[in-house]
């Protein structure tokens, strides 16, 4: 289905990736995943997702860095990026917005919260 919106899930933790998939199953989205910042950048440029849900703390390239790179590329300059953090500490929020993310979710999030944030960007 070409009309289906694509969401790229990025997390180095298989637990979180699976949980996000399970929380979003049944929604009309095609779900892609990546397990590092580097992989996320590659996947985002190649697949052009409609939204990216990205973990902050990852080995190698972290979520902020990936966010900055994606914002500097024409193809992903405006793609909504929702960062996933454990605790929305002030430092994280500031660094996140500096790097160009669109919004936040804080662990532990629930399905409704996550779906609402996503719908906010993608509409229904």
């Amino acid at each position, binding site marked *: 289905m070409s009309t289906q919106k694509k969401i790229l899930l990025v997390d180095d933790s298989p637990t979180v990736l699976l949980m996000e998939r399970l929380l979003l199953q049944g929604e009309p989205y095609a779900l892609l995943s990546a397990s590092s910042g580097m992989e996320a950048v590659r996947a985002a440029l190649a697949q052009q997702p409609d939204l990216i849900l990205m973990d902050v703390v990852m*080995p190698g390239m972290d979520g902020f860095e990936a966010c900055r790179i994606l914002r500097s590329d024409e193809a992903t300059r405006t793609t909504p990026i929702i960062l996933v953090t454990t605790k929305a500490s002030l430092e994280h929020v500031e660094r996140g917005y500096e790097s160009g993310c669109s919004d936040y979710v804080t*662990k532990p999030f629930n399905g409704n919260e996550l779906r609402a944030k996503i719908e906010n960007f993608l509409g229904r």
Partner: protein
Amino acid sequence: MHPDDMESLRGIFRAEARELLIGMERAILLLESTADPEVPKGLFRAVHTLKGNCLMMGFPDASELVHAVEDLLQMYVARTLSASAAVVTLLLQSVDALRMLLGVPGEGRVAADIDPAVIQGRLLQTARAGGVTEAPPVLGKVRGFSSEVPPESPAPERTLRVGLDRLDRLLDLTGEIAISRGRLTTMLEQADRHAPAELLEAHREMDRLYLDLQDLVLKTRLVPIGRAFQPFARTLWELGLATGKQVRLEVSGEDVEVDTTVVELIRDPLTHLVRNAVDHGIESPSVRQARGKPHTGTLRIQARHEAGAIVVQVSDDGVGLNRERILQKARATGLLGPNEDREDSELFQLIFAPGFSTAERVTELSGRGIGMDVVWRNIEMLRGTISIETREGLGTTFTLRLPLTLSIIEGFCVGVGEDTYVLPLENVFECVELPPEERGSGATGLLHLRGRALPYLRLREHFACEGPRSERESVVIVGHGQEYRAGLAVDALLGQAQTVIKPLNKVFQHLPGLAGSAILGTGRVALVLDVSSLLRSLLPSPIIRVA
């Protein structure tokens, strides 16, 4: 969320938590000695991921504990804490507490008897005080040997992570076999149009594919043996604290791949050998210095492939085995007569006898002489052998030799009445005919072979087999490693065949003398004999050599 989904999520969470905790433990042990900035970075990432996952999965206690660990780690890495050994102990205990809270036992370690709330209190207090103010709690018994596991502890989940590429190759091969099978079926349906040689060739082609499949399935079960070595850094650190000895661990061959069952079963024997090496082998720093040895002892664990087997060696550069003391002990316990002596290699094997321990005092670490016999039993269960090399004053090396795979063996088939039994070929040394005067019905007997008296067991009586007796009886000489030989009297020698061992049904699993069952080429079921336990029923103790 659907209960099934929740279940798979929990499974992934536990598997990940287990890995994260192993990584944390390893990094905590390295913190003091390493200059690699990746170690603390990786540690913080693991802590962070674990904290997030605990929050998401509804483990608030664990998540708070991880948070306290994170705070303390930050201070530790920033070098604002004093008394580092005690802090490391506390951090390691936190890892144990987390394992307990999350229900993920460490590799080969028994969940510690630890109260997570107490640990958390201590973490907070330590962070507040800027270091450990009270003496660290006395380390309990150093854990990690399964004979100490309380029986109610649940068996760990038996899972195996398999690379997708391996599964893809399996699927490809299944496809090829399907095609080949289809071709053979078509040919057989029109068998009159094909020469027998053609049909046989088609069958052989399928056979080749099938063998590839077998090979791949076995490879799928392979995991790096290094997993069995994982707990030892921690074990050595704890032993170092408890004994004041300094020991450096050198590990090589972690990548050697072995059947997953080998990793499960080799952990306990290795743990015991490692503890033994520190307790009895490696000397205290002052003694070492006086003997002109380096302060810090070295413990090496090496794994490698060797001629179709896996060899794992545990060596230390400690005192070596004391021949005189082992001899005295063997005489004192009646394993040897008062004036009897043995060659070194045989004498040293005596330390595997149940209850044999030469330690002058019973220590907390190595227990009370239970242990080495457990090592022996575990290695036997893996159909492996163990040998010892030692040089007084210079150190000891234990060499474990294990079969590459556990489920397929080269078997030797024997017939008793109407039944067929399979012996692992590696345990079969020779076959001789039973002299006429020995033929009969006794369950056991003695056979004279090249001037030695060899006890033998008549399988017909041992397993109460029925069916007509044969005219002649043969004796299969079986043994384990170099030393222990005994005979098994059977009706017929049926020859060699590759055999897939299937485990016995639970009801029959504890029958002595049987290792499993196998399906023969004829479609009949045969029982696979457990040579070690048969030997035990013949010989009073594994160390008595038939001389």
